[in-house]
């Protein structure tokens, strides 16, 4: 298809002009999403705009161009795929690889050089590329021993030993959490819209009914980890605060900076029996980097919504 890019004159009809414009948005959109996404998960903030906003609207531009392009080219694609049998191509070596018949198809090169790679070879090369990315990345998501084979992935690293050995999104020092804030003077504040306030220390929280669940942290940056968390159910905290059926739950952290220092949870997230204010992980106290003294763990929420270093939970009712 690329030789068609350099045809002269570049525009010969309205159809072609519109098509080339949407193709520019398609190719640009796909590259934009991939490049900004890759820069973001590797913390090279080279772009002068907000990642989330640009990536979100960039996706809409890409989807619009992709859907239109697939709709227009689907008959062409089906015709092309049906013209050859996959089984035969997989048995055809380079010596027997011949160029496409030109016919009346404008996409076929009219006077090609002899083939230097078989069709099965090209298919294999694309497959090898996918496999290379899979192998160097998937350990970030599978975790456990597989994390060691994620050689190039940003979250394929060893965090040390013990029950707190799993990836940290942002460490305590990065969010300016001081040991004096999380020591014996730390209190969890439970607030309601009605204005009632309750304050609990960590030993008091540990005396409440504790529950243990195996739950994942799944980061939108492409890594995840499943751990065993122990803590107080969020709905038990709501009852303790005197708010049985709140409309929303605002969780606030001690952290400074970052877009997720306070997070709004939905009533369904609050009511899930597995939604915890976790105090321990794998039987040990949370480490400072994993959110000591207490962090939220909610099933199926994006990792950034599992707020660490929680200082206040506000239950509101409209």
């Amino acid at each position, binding site marked *: 298809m690329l030789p068609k890019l350099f045809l002269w004159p570049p525009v010969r009809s309205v159809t072609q002009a519109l098509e080339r414009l949407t193709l520019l948005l398609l190719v*640009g959109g796909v590259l934009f999403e991939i490049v900004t996404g890759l820069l973001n998960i590797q913390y090279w903030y080279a772009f002068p705009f907000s990642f989330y906003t640009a990536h979100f609207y960039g996706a*809409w531009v890409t989807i*619009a161009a992709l859907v*239109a392009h697939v709709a*227009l080219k689907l008959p062409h694609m089906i015709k092309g795929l049906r013209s050859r049998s996959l089984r035969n191509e997989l048995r055809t070596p380079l010596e027997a690889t011949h160029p496409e018949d030109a016919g009346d198809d404008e996409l076929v090169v009219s006077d090609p050089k002899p083939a*230097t790679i078989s069709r099965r070879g090209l298919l294999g*090369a694309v497959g090898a590329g996918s496999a290379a990315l899979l192998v160097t990345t998937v350990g970030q998501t599978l975790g456990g021993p597989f994390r060691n084979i994620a050689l190039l992935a940003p979250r394929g690293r060893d965090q040390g030993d013990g029950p707190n050995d799993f990836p*940290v999104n942002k460490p305590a020092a990065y969010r300016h959490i001081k040991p004096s804030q999380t020591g014996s003077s730390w209190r969890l504040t439970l607030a309601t819209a009605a204005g009632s306030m309750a304050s609990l220390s960590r030993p008091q929280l540990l005396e409440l009914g504790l529950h243990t669940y195996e739950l994942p942290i799944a980061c939108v940056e492409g890594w995840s980890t499943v751990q065993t968390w122990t803590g107080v159910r969020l709905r038990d905290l709501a009852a303790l605060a005197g708010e049985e059926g709140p409309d929303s739950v605002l969780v606030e952290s001690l952290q400074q900076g970052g877009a997720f220092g306070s997070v709004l949870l939905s009533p369904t997230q609050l009511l899930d029996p597995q939604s915890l204010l976790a105090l321990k992980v794998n039987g040990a106290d949370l480490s400072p980097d994993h959110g000591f003294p207490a962090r939220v763990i909610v099933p199926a929420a994006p990792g950034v919504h599992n707020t660490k270093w929680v200082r206040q939970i506000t239950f509101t009712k409209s």
Partner: protein
Amino acid sequence: MAQKLDIFRRRYGGSPLHLVAMVASLALAGFAGLKLTQSLGTSKTTAVAVWLIGAAVAHDLILFPIYTLLDKAGTKLVARPRRTSAINFIRLPVLLSGMLFLVYVPLVGGFSGTTYESITGLPVSVYFGRWLLITGALFGLSGALYALKLGVSGSRGHPSHGSSTESS
């Protein structure tokens, strides 16, 4: 009706459905651009547009000519009779190693440097070494496979054992 359709096709160069798809696609893209301007402002939206269009232009006018010329040079270098497919034993490791480099260039090239290190508390320098090792392993494996293939086709291509063009 059919006559009107013919006139449309002649004037526009495609079917009415084509025009509908194009306009729908451009309208949605325009709407996304408008929403983006509302949340980021004009100057940052311009920056997004420059990056988006720039990505396509950079690929088509810089990256594409570079890898085409490299491939032509490589093909010429190994172009000897009966050795056409040798180029693929260079192409594949170059493709895989180059793709991994491009995908992980912030870490492999150390561009994430201080940000990565302050977020993870771990040095970023390990990635360049790991990439070199992977590259070395890929070329080593490819070389070994090529040697194996030469050995096989060499014994097959022996005068008393038929034609050398049988090798794949």
